[in-house]
């Protein structure tokens, strides 16, 4: 029996158990979607290195794993508070994929903002969810989106009405527990930003140090005319977690989208970002930062489609790789025929801290229109020795100098983060991940104390 079939059988068996115990049966349209997802996943199978999009990423950690489904959302509020983002926010929390009302905070939603768990939205709000769900992330996209479509039973639906400005950030808090048997979850997120609305949404993945679970999330984001949206993925999973995420964005006229994709945790991480700039004046910025060490494997794939004239995109991904970690960056920009007056920039810079670390990078451009300004660049190298020297002439020891410069390298992305709490947390995490010899702990404390 193939790995794909074995995996499916096990999953179907387990999910059937859960469904039987559910109070209400699922609506028929949900069942139909699940069938399509299952069929597609089985047809595609788990990807192998022969698939161009998975050339550098081995998914056997997932395909050969035996993952159960979480039965409850029990989690100590104290641990949750320590691990979660300390932000005054509208918050939806999930524990191993199961919604936890206790850890969530949806009080005082401003008028015109809808935030609810996917499970309730699917059952009660077919109109709003049925039409949009799966529109951007079809089952064709990858075996993992197919798998998600087949088995997603929790997640979040966020709908921002026209002209609504949401002041507080909306945090989707995903916790991963240290379970006796690893579990898997397939969260699904749907975000619809109405015309001229504004909001900041953060997907935060974090867990207990011993957790070894598999998360397979799919997020779909729609921006209507003039909407302004900041979207964060902050992935700080345990070093045994497998994390597969795909983010699909559809931008309307004059909309502005900013994406942060920050990956610090996980044993096996694969991120896909698929953006469609569908109408004139759409503008997007994509910032990425990944820091992997030990034997972590982090794969980032981005695809930006300029489907309309006068659209702008700018992408900047930075990678730091230590020990035997492996990083992948594959960025692709496609400018469709007749999409004139386009500007698209893409850059990927990587820093290798160890001889056994590896980075595979491929910044691609496919251009079918002529009145365009496109550029891309990729650099991989070491710290600027002149800068190291300059710091040493100020009396800073070499290791600290290297640490500071490594932090500065990541800083180019962190500086773009508008939320201080997030920026600070990332900076600390990056500093904390640096090899001990760099010894930056105190310095960062000083800096953050100064900010406070």
């Amino acid at each position, binding site marked *: 029996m193939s790995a794909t079939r074995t995996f499916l059988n096990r999953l179907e068996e387990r999910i059937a158990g859960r469904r039987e115990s559910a109070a209400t049966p699922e609506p028929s349209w949900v069942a139909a979607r699940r069938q399509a997802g299952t069929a597609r996943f089985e047809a595609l199978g788990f990807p192998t290195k022969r698939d*161009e999009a998975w050339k*550098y990423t081995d998914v056997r950690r997932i395909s050969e794993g035996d993952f159960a489904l979480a039965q409850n959302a029990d989690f100590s509020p104290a641990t949750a508070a320590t691990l979660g983002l300390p932000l005054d926010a509208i918050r939806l929390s999930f524990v191993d994929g199961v919604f936890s009302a206790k850890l969530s905070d949806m009080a005082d939603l401003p008028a015109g903002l809808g935030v609810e768990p996917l499970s309730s939205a699917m059952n009660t709000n077919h109109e709003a969810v049925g039409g949009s769900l799966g529109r951007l992330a079809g089952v064709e996209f990858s075996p993992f989106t197919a798998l998600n479509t087949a088995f997603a039973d929790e997640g979040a639906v966020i709908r921002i009405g026209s002209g609504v400005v949401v002041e507080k950030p909306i945090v989707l808090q995903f916790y991963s527990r240290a379970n006796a048997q690893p579990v898997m979850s397939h969260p699904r997120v749907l975000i619809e930003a109405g015309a001229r609305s504004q909001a900041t949404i953060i997907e935060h993945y974090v867990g207990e140090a011993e957790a070894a679970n598999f998360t397979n999330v799919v997020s779909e984001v729609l921006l209507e005319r003039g909407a302004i949206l900041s979207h964060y993925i902050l992935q700080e999973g345990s070093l045994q977690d497998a994390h597969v995420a795909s983010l699909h964005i559809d931008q309307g006229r004059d909309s502005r989208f900013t994406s942060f994709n920050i990956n610090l945790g996980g044993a096996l991480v694969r991120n896909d970002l698929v953006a469609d700039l569908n109408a004139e004046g759409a503008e997007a910025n994509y910032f990425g930062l990944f820091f992997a060490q030990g034997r972590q494997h982090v794969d980032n794939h981005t695809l930006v489609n300029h489907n309309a004239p006068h659209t702008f995109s700018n992408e900047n991904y930075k990678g730091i790789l230590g020990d035997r970690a492996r990083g992948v960056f594959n960025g692709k920009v496609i400018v469709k*025929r*007749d999409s*004139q007056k386009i500007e698209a920039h893409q850059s990927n810079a*990587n820093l*290798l*801290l*160890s*001889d*056994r*670390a*590896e*980075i*595979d*990078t*491929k*910044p*691609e*451009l*496919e*251009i*079918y*229109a*002529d*009145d*365009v*300004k*496109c*550029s*891309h*660049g*990729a*650099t*991989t*190298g*070491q710290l600027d020795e002149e800068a190291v020297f300059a710091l040493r002439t100020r009396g800073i020891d070499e290791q600290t100098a290297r640490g500071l410069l490594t932090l500065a390298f990541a800083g180019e992305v962190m500086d773009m983060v508008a939320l201080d709490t997030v920026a600070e947390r990332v900076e600390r995490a990056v500093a904390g991940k640096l090899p001990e010899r760099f010894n930056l702990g105190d310095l960062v404390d000083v800096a953050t104390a100064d900010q406070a």
Partner: protein
Amino acid sequence: MATEEMEQLVRREYTQGFVTDIESDTVPPGLDESVIAFISQKKGEPQWMLEWRLEAYHQWLKMKEPSWAHLNYPPIDYQAISYYSAPKKPEDRPQSLDEVDPKLLETYEKLGIPLHERAALAGVAVDAVFDSVSVTTTFKEKLGEAGVIFCSISEAIREYPELVKKYLGTVVPQGDNFFAALNSAVFTDGSFVFVPEGVTCPMELSTYFRINAANTGQFERTLIVCEKQAQVSYLEGCTAPQRDENQLHAAIVELVALEDAYIKYSTVQNWYPGDEDGKGGIYNFVTKRADCRGDRSKVSWTQVETGSAITWKYPSCLLRGKDSVGEFYSVAVTNGRQQADTGTKMIHIGEGTKSTIVSKGISAGNSEQSYRGLVKIGPRAKRARNFTQCDSLLIGDRSGAHTFPYQEIGNSTATVEHEATTSKIGEDQLFYCRQRGISEEDAVNMIVNGFCKDVFQELPMEFAVEAEALLNVTLEGAVG
């Protein structure tokens, strides 16, 4: 049925059954062991060579044609191709330049091809092959004195079997890829160059020889070996448009550079690109690879690609020797319905290896062009460096320019830089030139040549001038 027609039919069948007759000048379409045996016999090859070819053929049978390139062409029927045909007899060729298409002659004029070369290029049966016999003799003498071997690969297989055996297929193995396997089975001609230790080849292996090369295009196989401290500059191809009745071309070039050796390989490819709809153009699937085996060895590829309907070509360097150097300079121009997928691979294996890639792509008309490159830094390639500059220029709004640069970096002491831009010829640049009284067409030529300058300056001097002219001719009518 008329007797005459009947006779023709019979004759045809008869010919088809006659494949192993080595007196025959062509084999009927199709490929099997007997065809390979026929080619080998025709060339007077030793048994080991035939076996080598058959080995390649058997590997080819198991292989699939690659489909990953950004190219779109109808499937090729490999059994519909004839794999051997002797050069045309003088009586079948045009007898003088008067019989040649005046358009072709006009192009030669524009390119500044010397008069005495034009006839040969147009395929005119020239008596006494003008003065080439004497030229060849002088060349051979001079090369012989220096100890340089320069001859056709067929001759080399017969005359220097040990050398050929030692190096053939060591850079591009028989089963390297689909087209390489096909070439290994059926190659009919090409060049062999051997420069012994410490010798700098006394002349550029170019000018005259490009004319002879015109007749050996289909499954060309070239092998160049430079021993320790040897140097050679080799020039392949020709700026003049070349026509060939064989639509499929699958060439192999293997370069071997030992310690401190330097090989400079320049190509100008201007095969027939097909008509306005791309019909009838050459399919050019080429495997070119250099093995920088020795420490401090250096190989430099320079190419100007303007022809062919389909180009599939990635001149590469295996940088194995410590501090060895690989370079790739490329200008590719596509117009009409041309499609090109080209680039390079720089495989850094040894310590301190360096590579430079400069690729300039110009797409006009309805053409599609892709740069596809790989820079791989192995774990032992300490302090390896690569710099890649990869620019595309678009002319008109129906063309496409794509960039697929792969970088696989497995060494923290490596420095790899890649820069790429895609732009159109700036309206403001055109306006500036025209405001100085320069016509739009001249302005485009000037800007395009400026865009390509970094590559042209790597070409041998007189060739660079021809290449500039070639570019202008290729882009004629692309603007406006």
